[in-house]
């Protein structure tokens, strides 16, 4: 997956801004930041052609720490800001960073619309299943029954499955990674970057202050074998220390089986390029939460018309047809008369 044709012109350190990083010590955001800084030199882009756009939240402080252009926007609106930017400047590498509250609560609508439009922005949702910056209320990904400051008797809200939301919203690129695996993050972010359209990546991120250990059931070293299902394009989906588990399709739903109990061709072969998102959806729904076998990797990566370039093509076609800008002609276009 690594594109070796690119000779880095920058070093990871070139991507670090001069601002002191101010997340809580131990926060998962640090490792994501490191992964991003380490990845950047190999992408063949430059800091000055790169923009990080964010909303509000702990995650949303991310742009301050990257030595690129950046917009720290307002709560929930980053996908919309980024859409305008990406349309005006299809030449830029635009990343959107936000938390589960930022992009699934107040900003849910902008997210799903950006995804369906397939505008070339790379959306990383740092899912810590909590509102960090406002000090610990439940978020749209918190589990039912979660006791927080705003849900002292337990939250009543069924959580979103971010990947299911994205797939339901026509996302052409959908992936998941987690803050405990730098290489996997880098690979996944690279794939998002390479995708010609809107890319959505859920990053399981630990908030050690308000929701510590939310993803331990799958990301902790000793749980990974049993619960992390790495997706690899073209490969049958199997996992476990010795590949003893696999995933099959059962009338449209994914189910975990012992590989011993089924023949290999009964196992689902992962195909991220399928145009119909249903299989990806099925995989996204395999786990009911990060406490049972959960796939990570690229769920879907399909080509469809990228929005900003399509818009550019319309401008070109219009110029072809109507001629380029001519103010005098514009002012006369509804007919004139002389006095």
């Amino acid at each position, binding site marked *: 997956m690594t594109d070796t044709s690119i000779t880095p012109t920058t070093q990871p350190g070139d991507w670090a*801004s001069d*601002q002191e990083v101010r997340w809580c010590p131990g926060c998962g955001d640090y490792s994501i930041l490191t992964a991003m800084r380490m990845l950047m030199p190999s992408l063949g882009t*430059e*800091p*000055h*052609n*790169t*923009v*990080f*756009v964010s909303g*509000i939240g702990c995650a949303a402080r991310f*742009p*301050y720490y990257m*030595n*690129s*252009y*950046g*917009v*720290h*926007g*307002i709560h929930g*609106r980053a996908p*919309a*800001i*980024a*859409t*305008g*930017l*990406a*349309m*005006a*400047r299809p*030449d*830029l590498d635009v990343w959107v960073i936000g938390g589960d509250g930022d992009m699934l609560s107040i900003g849910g*609508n*902008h997210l799903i*619309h950006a995804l369906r439009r397939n505008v070339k922005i790379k959306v990383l949702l740092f899912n810590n299943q909590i509102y960090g910056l406002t000090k610990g209320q439940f978020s749209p990904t918190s589990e039912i029954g979660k006791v927080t400051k705003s849900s002292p008797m337990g939250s009543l809200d069924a959580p979103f499955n971010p990947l299911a939301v994205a797939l339901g919203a026509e996302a052409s690129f959908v992936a998941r990674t987690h803050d405990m695996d730098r290489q996997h993050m880098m690979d996944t972010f690279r794939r998002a970057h390479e995708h010609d359209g809107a890319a959505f990546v859920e990053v399981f991120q630990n908030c050690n202050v308000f929701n510590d250990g939310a993803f331990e059931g799958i990301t902790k070293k000793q749980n990974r074998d049993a619960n992390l299902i790495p997706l690899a394009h073209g490969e049958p989906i199997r996992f476990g220390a010795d590949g003893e588990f696999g995933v099959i399709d059962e009338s449209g739903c994914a189910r975990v089986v012992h590989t011993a109990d089924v023949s290999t061709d009964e196992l689902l072969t992962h195909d991220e390029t399928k145009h119909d998102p249903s299989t990806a959806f099925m995989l996204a729904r395999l786990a009911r939460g990060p406490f049972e076998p959960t796939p990570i990797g690229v769920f879907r990566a399909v080509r469809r018309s990228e929005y900003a370039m399509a*818009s550019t093509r*319309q*401008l070109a*076609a*219009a*110029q072809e*047809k*109507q*001629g*380029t*800008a001519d*103010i*005098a002609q*514009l*002012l*006369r276009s*509804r*007919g*004139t*008369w*002389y*006095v």
Partner: protein
Amino acid sequence: MTDTASRELPLQEIDEVIIRFAGDSGDGMQLTGDQFTSISAALGNDLSTLPEFPAEIRAPQGTLAGVSAFQVRISDFDITTPGDAPTVLVAMNPAALKAQLHNLAQGGALILNTDAFNDRNLEKAGYASNPLDDGTLDDYRSYPVPMSQITRDAVAEHGVKPRDAERSKNFFALGLISWMYTRPVEPTLEFINTKFRGREQVINANTAAFKAGYNFGETAEIFEAHYEVKPAPLAPGEYTNVNGNTALAWGCVVAGQLARLPVFLGSYPITPASDILHEMSLKKNFGVRTFQAEDEIAAAASAVGAAFGGALAFTSTSGPGLALKGETLSLAVSLELPMVVLDIQRGGPSTGLPTKPEQADLMMAMYGRHSESPLPVVAPRSPADCFDIAIEASRIALKYRTPVIVLSDGYLANSSEPWLLPDVDELPDIGVEFATEFNGTNEDGDGIFLPYLRDPDTLARPWAIPGTPGLMHRVGGIEKEDGTGNISYEPENHQLMIDLRQAKVDGVDVPDVEVAGDAHADLVILGWGSTWGAIDAAAGRLREDGFEVAHVHLRHLNPLPADLGEVLRRYRAVVCPEMNKGQLCDLVRAKYLIDVEHIGKIDGVPFTTGEVTSAVRKRLEELAGS
């Protein structure tokens, strides 16, 4: 049939006429009015038009709710409004009569499609008896014409189905009115040919109906005279007829050219602003990118993004949408990026009266954001001025790196007037430079970029767009340190930044007040926005009646012209007609402690010249008496 009438009817010269075409939404009244306007424009009349659309998309045929109307005023002198009351009403059915009669001037002419006055239609319009013969119309001059029947007969030979035949009756009406006001025939025949190109039958039917109408006037012995309105003494030059929304859209497109920047519009459809989105969507060849966002917040946010990327960014909306954009505009204020917000005001609160104008978003434009979020506000005063105001708003936005709000309204949006085309070469250069170089040094003496280092004159910060090597920086809505733009929670810095943002807006270069009329009068009428026409006309009438009156019309509402207080203090009375409960009044009162008197009206209908005249006259008489 020739261009000049033949039956020996007297040709009376009149100085103006105000015609209102009214019919069912499906009757093509807008088209009819538009075409009449075009011919009159070509004849050199001054003119002003105002369409009136039904609130429903397509209310049941024949009902009051379905009435669509178009008012056009043509004159041989300079006019600024479509006129208070039509002198001629063309009513295609009972509902149109019922809905519009109260507008008609006393003794005005009524041209009625009698065929439509059947029981069913009368009932739908809510008439208990037939107004044609129950005395309802006694105070008017009625001209009953069986339009449907004659149209059907006229088009019969062209093989049009009877059901479709009647659809040409608006051209019959246009023909008749063209005869009455001695308009030439050819332009309309040409128009029909162009408009319906490729649909022979339709062309033939409409042509036949139009000629039938014209001939009917000439031959039917019901009209006493026909009329002529001579050209108005307009400044010589090339004219076009624009409504405010079109002019505004063109202004935005042209501003991009004048600034040498790509134009971006993020918008969400809303009455009466949608046409700006529609019009700008047609200008892709100007490099204009339009984005129909998922809502108004996204529309504004996308404009912020585009502005960060170096576009000249716009967002267009009406009141409810502007209310939604407040938080995003506060971000734009904090980021100090150029962008222009177009608010086409409509009746409120809430959904209110979406198709009716109001001027009640001024306070929201000033204060509809949390904390101290000052931004410049401007307002056009006429349809054609919308073009200039778009360029002026863009100029301010770019020069000062600030969001600017333009307050137009549903009246300006849809009404139109002849516009003397500007000399393209005389249009201002509103371009600004992007930052490309370091503008500071760090402790080690190395060059650095300070995104909030201000221009000492304008207090504008540098605009360095992504793609510029070396100038990477981050902007955000948390309070920023002066100069570096880094997050700062320092009290002194916050006070400084609050003061700087305010000073920047206060320092926008706004021209001094222009006093129209009698500068030395006792009373000045203060106005802003679309009331200009009515106030100007009212001042004219009052002067004709021997009063002295001055008129100050503001195009810049924030900041106000530097000399405004001084100018207003010269007068014994300052009155301010506004379609709201006194918003400009309050701004001026608070700022200058001048007792500006409100002349209010908020019923969804623009001020008439008469309303302004009589309100001001009353005050003038008081002053004279006192």
